[in-house]
């Protein structure tokens, strides 16, 4: 999927996928604070769960923020080309 320009000359957000490496998760919860609509925590041990496996493109910045804040690199973001 290629980027398209909208009327006000802005690049439309790319769609993206999130891959989680839950084994590394320490339950810090930064991701939930950054994007509570996308990330949740398992009731038993606080490990991250993906609430939305088809995130809207306009949530990319929030998800990339979550990926940066994660202390153990659990979140991988793959942008569609």
């Amino acid at each position, binding site marked *: 999927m290629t980027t398209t320009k909208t009327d006000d000359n802005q690049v439309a957000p790319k769609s993206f996928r999130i891959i989680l490496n839950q*084994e*590394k998760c*320490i*339950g*810090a*919860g930064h991701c*939930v*604070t950054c994007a*509570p609509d996308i990330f949740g*925590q398992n*009731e*038993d*041990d*606080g*490990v991250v769960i993906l609430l939305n496996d088809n995130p809207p493109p306009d949530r990319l910045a929030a998800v990339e923020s979550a990926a940066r*804040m994660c*202390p*153990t*690199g659990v979140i991988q973001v793959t942008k569609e080309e």
Partner: protein
Amino acid sequence: MNTATQETDLPTFPIPRTDLLVPPAEYAKFREQGPTKVRMWDGRDAWVFTRNADVRELLSSPHFSADPTKPGYPFLTPARAATVKSYQTFITMDPPDHTKFRRMLTKDFTVKRMEELRPAIEKYVDGLIGDMIEHGPPCDLVKHLALKLPVTVVSMLVGVPYDDHERLVKWSNDRLDLSLPAEVSQQAYKHMADYFDQVVQKKEKDPGDGSDMVGRLVLEQIRTGNCTRMDAVHMILLLYFAGHETTANQIGMGVLNFLMNPEQCKKLQANPELAKNAVEEMLRLDTPTHYNACRAAIADVTIGGQLIRAGEGAYALLIAANFDPAVFPEPTKFDIERANASAQMTFSYGLHQCIGQPLARLELQTVFKTLFQRLPNLELAVPFDQIPFKREMYVYGLNALPVRW
């Protein structure tokens, strides 16, 4: 086994703080050099990392161990070396044990759990400020708020009576005092362990429905054989100890930051929503965890361009990372609107990042949203040079903060 080269003229470490408010000037020199070798009190060497990027790289690396029994693990002082004889908890473990034990407690610190606790924390803070007002000026803010709040909260969390806190806090202080002999630190730890052993034993006889932390550990972890009673005792002890000391120090130093920077105080008063970012900025500037973090290399690895061999010790200095001008321009400036304040490293990084950080943030944010609204004319009741700083403690902070309004 690595035999330390007997290099002369290595800088000694730790470096005592001469300036009370900013880290030792030597860290800036080290930062320019990159990874720096230092000589410890016991004649051993260690690497000190001060660049923000290097500290992150090291703490993310699987080639470093948090286990003090590993060869080369560095100790600041004889008292710190004595900690290796204490029972280990997940703070000094590597995976897979670290993962197993830490995950027994993470459900108490989820974002959702913090939101459930928020009303109680707000109530405590309002009550404590009300008590301060009733007491009248002058008043020691450390005693009445900075220490009292986290002790109240952590006592509630682990289910111990608040009234037991005086001896628990005294033992904690003995444990953290770098100037005391090792035996004092060990004895203090033993007292705390005996105390929490009684707490857990009582719960084992009657765990209730397991809705409280210790009851839940009894039902879900001890009785199932996932952990022993001693494991549980030492984990609770760790939470009590880490859960009050650090937060208390940050509250005290945070208030002092505002008292010394009136324009920042006015900004906060005009917009209490700035409290959230202000908390990140004060964590950065004050870094109570000023001697964290230590590790031992368990494989040869290159960090910040320097080859570190297996069996060498390292300090990934959080406080130096917090003052790295490459990441935080004008690092000594207290700027509550600093755009990247949340990149602060006081809670550390990697898999040992502080388990209590959501609770610490909740307490700090509540204090700083409220305190200057209710006490807008808060000021120091003594000259700055009469404020007692914890110069020889493993965790930095204030022993007292006399204020008036």
